[in-house]
């Protein structure tokens, strides 16, 4: 089946197997491997991207369901001149990542969270990120990162 999507501003058209998950399509056919796969039950959120402005776990969709959609992945967050997105910068400044595997999904989910709630409390951030798992940070500095980004 043919799928046409815009990824980080660039239009891609590919023939895909119907069973291809969106995350597999992004990684293997578009060739953007920043979106990670951490589980097989849509539990961990490592594959979170933005589809038409909303954070979604790209393992919960088939590639064909995204046909015609506009996708932003972690590779599309920094400015063309290399300036990090404010959320990326906040994660760096607050040591919100260690191994970095959950980080792309965390940044995408956190960015979406602030779009919906620009002034979250710590509690709001913790609830808002409950679909994204991290094993390294204990979340303390992830939460601080998101609060810092909100304060900017």
């Amino acid at each position, binding site marked *: 089946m043919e799928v046409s999507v815009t990824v980080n501003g660039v239009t891609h058209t590919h023939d895909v*197997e119907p*069973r291809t998950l969106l995350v597999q399509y992004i*990684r293997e056919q578009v*060739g*953007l*491997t*920043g*979106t*990670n*796969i*951490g*589980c*097989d*039950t*849509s*539990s*961990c959120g*490592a594959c979170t991207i933005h589809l038409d402005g909303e954070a979604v776990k790209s393992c919960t969709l088939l590639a064909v369901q995204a046909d015609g959609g506009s996708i932003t*992945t*972690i*590779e599309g*967050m*920094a400015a063309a001149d290399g300036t*990090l997105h404010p959320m*990326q910068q906040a*994660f*760096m*400044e607050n*040591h919100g*990542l*260690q*191994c*970095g*595997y*959950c*980080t*792309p999904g965390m*940044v995408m989910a956190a960015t979406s969270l602030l779009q919906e709630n620009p002034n979250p409390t*710590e509690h709001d*951030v*913790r*609830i808002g*990120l*409950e*679909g*994204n*798992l*991290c*094993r*390294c*940070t*204990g*979340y*303390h*500095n*992830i*939460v601080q990162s998101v609060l810092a980004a909100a304060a900017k």
Partner: protein
Amino acid sequence: MTMTEDAPARTVLGQRLLRKEDPALLTGEAKFTADLVVPGALHLAVLRSPYAHATINSVDVSEALAAPGVRAAYAGAEVAAMFTGPLPCAWPVTADMKNPAHFPLAVTKAAFAGDGVACVLADSAAAAKDALELIKVDYTPHEAVTNLEDALSDRVVIHDELGTNKSYTWDLKIEETEGQVDAAFATAAYTTKQRFIQQRLIPAAMEPRSVLAVPQPFGGDMTLYSTTQIPHILKIFVAVLTGIPEHQMRVIAPAVGGGFGSKLNVYPEEVLCTALARKHKVPVRWTEDRSEASMSTIQGRAQIQDIELAADADGRLTGIRVRLIGDMGAYLQLVAPGVPLLGAFLYAGVYELPKAYDFSCTSVFTNMTPTDAYRGAGRPEATYAIERSMDALATEMGIDPLELRRRNFIPKDAFPYEAFTGLTYDSGDHDAAATVAAELMGYDEFRARQAAQNVPGATKLLGLGVSTYFEMCGLAPSRVLASLNYGAGGWEAATVRVLPTNRVQVVTGTAPHGQGHETSWSMIAAEKLGVDPADVDVLHSDTAIAPYGLDTYGSRSLPVGGVAIANACDGVIDKARQIAAHQLEANPDDLEFSGGVFRVAGSPDREMPLAAIAWAAFTAHDLPDGMEPNLEHSTHYDPPNFSWPFGTHMCAVEIDTETGQVEVLKYVAVDDCGVQVNPLIVDGQVHGGVIQGLAQALYEGAVYDTDGNLKNSTLAEYLVPAASDVPPITLGHTVTPSPTNQLGVKGVGEAGTIGAAPAVINAVVDALSGLGVRDIDMPASPNNVWHAIQAARASTTSSTHGGSQ
């Protein structure tokens, strides 16, 4: 913060420098193993036994071979013949330890649900997985062994050739005079006796394991990319097992997404991909699914602990007895037998104990996933047992648990302290750490609030838990490891080179997977050499670039690998001094080195910066007679001692007695890891460690049914906590430098995990103590807590009735 060191003038160490690893990880630029694109790679898929214990009568791969895209399919026996022997266990803790042959795929018997029995190579991962369904395996299932005491009975023997499920018994009995332990218990004013269950944990690093073997068929070289913590150790074992000469075997650990011990192994898929890539002369890759990971990647903890304390009338410890049963799972993994031994030296915690110690561990095989080192490896288990027991002792004596601990602390002025085990604790100040923790917690205020709230009939009960700990880390002096029959040394290698343009390369044998070594090692070199940390590049995790190393585990990287880098810098400085003295026509002893510049003492205008020396070393136009060109030094550092970080953790909880829900109100962690290279990173290590320990206490546990099926193999069922499940953490630090290395540093990677579980469970039991609850199984889930409350109430009610009749 309590500073107990004489602060030397440092310019870089101690700064909260942002990590140089982060931009690549934050933008998707970093490449994990599964991200690597190699044209023409075949995909491996492994068929796993659905039975925990079954004889394999036959394996028929013919239909799979005919499936679209399939290039090859193998049963276990064919695969075993590709190797020189079974997978390695590097820690034969006793001479008579039983170690069943563990082949990459099972040959005659599947010993756990998830044991590989056949495999497929195909053009795509999907084709390979599809073809697994076409393999026909004829099994004869047997009764599964999932209970440790049942396993010890040998009612059902798993490995027929061994004739028993017992792997080994390892004893450590230490007495000043024979019979001292028995005498201590006979004369004790107080004794405690408890059994604790260390439930099985699934490490659940966020990056699943992934392997990619790339052969060079006509040259003979093999490059193995793997999500491993141990590229150097892996290289040796893969070379030996496959017969590929070691000098032609290269292992690269690209970006690695967390480990916690789970990537500290030689796994079937690593040697399988290598052997099949060699055989088929094409790259072979494999990436596990999460559910597959839960079964086929090692699990942690899994011990039954029986511990008895003897104490005098003041509560001072006079004797300790420990009996462990260790669950090895189906086979012995790389260091699994040694995990209980790493804890054996810590069952007296941070307390003074006379030579009256009786420890014995018996480890057994079960039909469950093999276990091995998981963050802390033996030390969290030991700390849990002693810290839970100290609370039980305090309860028996009717004194405050923190007061009991203070009575038993090894005093500050006793360090370096030779413990009852003969090991020397390098430095410590337990009272200071406890005092800082109590202040941060508001200990006395909380006790008052607790007394007011925990009245009869209250349904919201407050509890406060304390734990104090030593982390025996920085593995390790090679001779000590030899005395424990460990199969390798504990040194670390470092090379430091100052390039012609005064940029610095540090080559390290450590293998980071989230710890920020590139940043911290840059800081060490920058501090020593007087250069900007941004001008230092750290090369690691590639055995062709960093040929020597013993990798990253056991909180060893800084106290061994980091110190090696500092020592290598000293070698560079020594050589640079000779060059500067030559060119400045001065005596080397008259040169002072600071801020990257050599100056002649008393003649500050006569100076030579490192940049000029590096260029001079490169051009070699005018070096001292006999000196070799270039400015580089390599060292191999074997530490003289373990390092002994320590600290106090405190946890405050409120429990709803009607639902069993535990809410953590406040968590305080005071950790002393000696001199901190980068406090930002130290904080992060403690945060993560604490939540991993808290997760054992409240949430996690691999659940097996009696048939040996793992019931919670996905992240939908196995409760790795989310941000919404855990509290923020209040950190404090004391700084007690280690006297055993030039940086004064200790490890910190496992400290949080070691301190956390006992602090949390002590808080839970403290909250419920008024109801008669004396212990609770981990995880203290609402269900477990509620049942503990009901059981205590039933017991109280029946004993009350008994008394009145």
